[in-house]
């Protein structure tokens, strides 16, 4: 049995490092985009439209991953796209987490009318199709980075609130909470010292998951042309364009798709990996 656990542990280590490696790479690309990108991501050259990547015959030297229909460099756009993706992931992920986990913790531990009100809001929110809701919000607020972040927080806080509420409720029934009360600890203090550490691993997993989801939502909004004004480089915008010209220039779709896929996967694995490695109960 301990042997099987060792196997899982090794796997956990591997996935932690692999996902951290990829996310580190994306972060570096985002930070140093102007230094790394071989071209201006917005520069068009209609004579260089739909050039294939370097290993395909007919490629244009210097455009490693080819160009799109307007002759913009795919690699450069990919690198600049990482900036928006990461900003959205970090800011929207963190904000959603604080709001959702906070409300969930309160509802689950305090119960009573606090729980009733928060749960009712969760119910209402759960009756909205999230993608449609986010599109609607962007249409209302107008495109832009801030709008995207706000929209993500508004639609996704329930993801945290639901799970954390259930967990906090379970932890609240444990005797160590009773024991803190016998010791004379107040309700808020008990919530922070006894409940929070025990739901923290779940929060971490949800947070990294949410970061991946935020990246996807941004991509979806770009895909339906609602995210960032016009032709700024975003992965979703590139995918949207690639979907149209999929039969003529597959590379316009494939590279941002791979980047998106790996990033989302890496975020979700990062959370699980962190939990396996740092949770004292599992260690």
């Amino acid at each position, binding site marked *: *049995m*301990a*042997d*099987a656990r060792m196997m899982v542990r090794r796997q956990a280590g591997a996935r932690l490092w692999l996902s951290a490696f990829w996310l580190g790479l994306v972060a570096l690309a985002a930070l140093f985009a102007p230094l790394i990108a071989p071209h201006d991501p917005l520069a068009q050259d209609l004579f260089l439209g739909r050039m294939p990547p370097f290993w395909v015959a007919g490629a244009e030297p210097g455009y490693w991953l080819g160009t799109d229909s307007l002759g913009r460099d795919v690699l450069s756009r990919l690198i600049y796209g990482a900036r928006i993706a990461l900003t959205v992931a970090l800011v929207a992920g963190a904000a959603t987490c604080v709001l959702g986990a906070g409300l969930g913790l309160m509802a689950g531990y305090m119960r009573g009318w606090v729980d009733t009100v928060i749960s009712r809001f969760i119910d209402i929110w759960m009756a909205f199709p999230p993608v449609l809701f986010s599109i609607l919000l962007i249409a209302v607020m107008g495109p832009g980075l801030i709008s995207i972040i706000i929209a993500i927080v508004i639609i996704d806080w329930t993801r945290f609130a639901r799970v954390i509420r259930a967990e906090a409720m379970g932890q609240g029934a444990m005797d160590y909470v009773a024991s803190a009360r016998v010791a004379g600890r107040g309700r808020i203090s008990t919530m922070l010292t006894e409940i929070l550490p025990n739901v923290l691993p779940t929060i971490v997993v949800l947070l990294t998951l949410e970061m991946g989801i935020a990246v996807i939502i941004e991509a979806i909004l770009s895909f339906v042309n609602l995210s960032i004004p016009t032709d700024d480089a975003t992965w979703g915008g590139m995918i949207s364009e690639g979907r149209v010209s999929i039969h003529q220039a597959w590379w316009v779709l494939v590279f941002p798709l791979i980047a998106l896929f790996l990033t989302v996967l890496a975020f979700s694995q990062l959370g699980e990996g962190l939990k396996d490695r740092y949770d004292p109960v599992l260690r």
Partner: protein
Amino acid sequence: MNYLELKGLSARIMRQNHPLLRSVSLALAPGEVRGLVGESGAGKSMIGKAVLGILPKAVELTGGEIWLDGQDLQRLSARDRRHRIGQSCALIPQDPLTALNPSRRIAPQITDRLVDILGWERARAVTRAEELLHEVRIEDPARVMRAYPHELSGGMRQRILIASAFAAEPKLIVADEPTTALDVTVQKQILKLIKDMQARHGTAILFVTHDLGVVSKVCNRLSVLYGGMVVEDNDIDSFFAGPRHPYSRALLAATPKYTDPGASLTPVPDSVIAGVRGEIEAFDQRQAHV
């Protein structure tokens, strides 16, 4: 002629060198009730599970033989062994609340085996099940047969499990801490019921328990276990008159008795623990050299 015989049975956690059973040998004559006693982790439950072929997946047998009614179970194919056990053995489990399938009615849970494994006709199996429910003093067997488990009390469910264990007239029953989850007053009724049924049907029982008090009420013989090793194999009267092994003696001394309040409780002394650990080490070294 013994009905069940274990010869040098050893088991360990898979791919690990941590033994759970260390060359356990014991015998059970037809109609005999043997207690398996020890503290948690002593391996007493493992023995019962090994006999019934329900060891956890992570546990493997590393040596020894299990003879049931003159037949070495290890030599049978997995399927034949299963059927052999299904025909002649039964289990009374610990927790009556989880031992009945909550989504099935009582009747099929008793008659399944009679029909599927023993090949009875369903009507005969149902009649038999009702007889047995009557025998364990359940008032309205026909109604109980139609009920779902959650409609019945804990004591009632334990009676049903006992009836179900005796249904196929097994030669051997493994009772795995069957009263640990119950109140003392209910425990007394259930223990008496088991003893009663055992006497009437002449069944041999392996009675797994941590409670020496319970052993003294239902068993003819007992084996005391520590670290997966049998440290004492004795009959009941001479055991309670004076255990032979120091560990058994310490265990008996640590068991509270309301009849003599003056005697202070003595935890099992460290020297005794060191003693049995030494025996185990010596045993492991002998094994390593073989």
